[in-house]
Each structure stands twice: as C-alpha cells, then as structure tokens.
C-alpha cells in the first residue's frame, strides 16, 4: 500500500467517474483531493464520485467532498455521489450534509439522477 490513495478515473459519455479505493482519512485525503480536482478540471457535465470502495471516511474526506461540491457549483457541473456505504453515510448524516449531496445507489443511477 503506498501513501497515495488509489483513485480510478474514467470518462463515460459526458460524465467523469472518480472511484477511490480504501479509507479516506487525513493521510489519504490529500491525494484523493488532488485526483478529484484533476477530474473536475476536465470540466465534465457530470462528476460522479463512486464511493463503493470506501469503507470509511473521516472529516478530512468529507471536507474534500464539500470542496468538490463548491467547485462543481461554480462550474455548473452536477456532482453525484454513489455507492455510499453505511459508515460513510453515517458521517455525512452526523455532519448534516446528507441533504447537500445528490446520492445515487450506483454509478448507473448516478448518470441519470
């Protein structure tokens, strides 16, 4: 395991799908943030963050998502989260941010939400 977060980025039509793998904590969120920014730089219509492979996230990961949301708004890009696991959803709820994000069940649904 390297110190950087493993993040897959795919283009699918007018969407870019960003799929990090592993816990997103203060150790890994900087590299997640960097990759997410790079994906946003492609200025897709839709930025999908697939969290299927993320069993755990702390507030540094949440901050990264909030920042991505702000960038998306500025660029009139739609940001959608999908594959959110129970524990990750729970921290979004504690932070009262579960309503802020568009959340789809999976990547397919995220393309139409």
């Amino acid at each position, binding site marked *: 395991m390297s110190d950087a977060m493993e993040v897959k980025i795919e283009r699918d039509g007018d969407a870019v799908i960003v799929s990090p793998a592993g816990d997103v904590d203060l150790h890994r969120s900087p590299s997640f943030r960097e990759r997410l920014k790079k994906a946003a730089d492609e200025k897709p219509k839709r930025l999908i963050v697939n969290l299927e492979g993320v069993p755990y996230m702390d507030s540094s990961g949440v901050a990264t998502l*909030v920042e991505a949301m702000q960038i998306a708004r500025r660029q009139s890009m739609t940001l959608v989260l999908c594959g959110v696991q129970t524990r990750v959803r729970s921290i979004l709820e504690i932070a009262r941010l579960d309503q802020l994000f568009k959340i789809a069940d999976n990547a397919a649904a995220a393309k139409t939400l």
Partner: protein
Amino acid sequence: MSPSEPSPSDVHVRLLSQPRFLSTARSAVMSFSKQLGFDDACCSHIALAVDEAICNIIRHGYSNAPDRPIWIGMTALEQSGQVEGVRIIIEDEARQVDPTAIKGRNLEDIRPGGLGVHIIREVMENVVYEARPCGGMRLKMSRRLPSAGGGRGISALPEEQDQPKPASAAAQPSRGDR
C-alpha cells in the same frame, strides 16, 4: 459522570503525530470497543471520534510536526464486573489552548472543514477537553453500551433510526460538560 474512574487504562497506544498511523489507532479502538460489546456501527463511531481528535492534535496542536507523541488510553467502564461502556483519554504535549476555544462550528455555514469537534461531541458522551498540569492537552470522553443507557441523544445511526430521540438537548449530559 461515569461510575468508575479511569484508573490505569487497559490498553494504551502511543503514536507519533503522523496521519499514516491513524488507521492503526482506529483499528485498535474498533477492536477494543467490539470486545466490550459495542455493535459495528458504534465501534466505527468511536473510532471516528478518536480519528478526529488525533487529526486535530496533529494539525492544530502540533502544526503538522511529525515526531511528537499522542497517547490514547482505553478503559472498560465496569460496574460490579459488568461492562457498561468505554472510556477513552487522548493526551498530547502540544501547546495548551483554552478548552472553551475548542468547539465545532455552526453547521448551517457549509464549508470544507470545521466538523471534527462537532463529530466528537455528537458520537461520544461526557466529552471534556482540559489542559494537563504537566503540559499538553487532554481529551476525555466515554460511551456507554446501549444496555447501560448509552447512545441516547447521540446522532442516529442508520441502524438506530427507528429509536425515539430525546426532544431536548438537556437530556444530553455531554453538552453540559463544556
């Protein structure tokens, strides 16, 4: 306050102030809590609180210096041989701050960051920050098992959403500790 005092902790973890050791701290806390009888959702919340506390010490207390110590003490709270919950104490040697200055931001103001303290107070009970007499800061917090009345007033876990929540914040002892 909880019935038993935190005598020498059952398990003590000391780590250097580097984010790469967060996962080790979380795993230790998760296993310890699980062993005491907490369910997976609670264990993961307790580990989250410890994670957030350590992140804050690294960032605010030690200004990201990578070679400073952080201690995590974990103790089973027991009453007549029965486990009632967990007590966690996190200590550092960082510069001391006024404990009242350590507070979560207003969540209405949505921006990146500023969630750590809110999370800690939300998922744990009896959260108390204090300056250590010997230097550095100390964070004491506990969580009782549901069977011992723990978790009331604590943010709903997905699995717990059908449980009634107390109507007023006065029912939450942790809030009175500030």
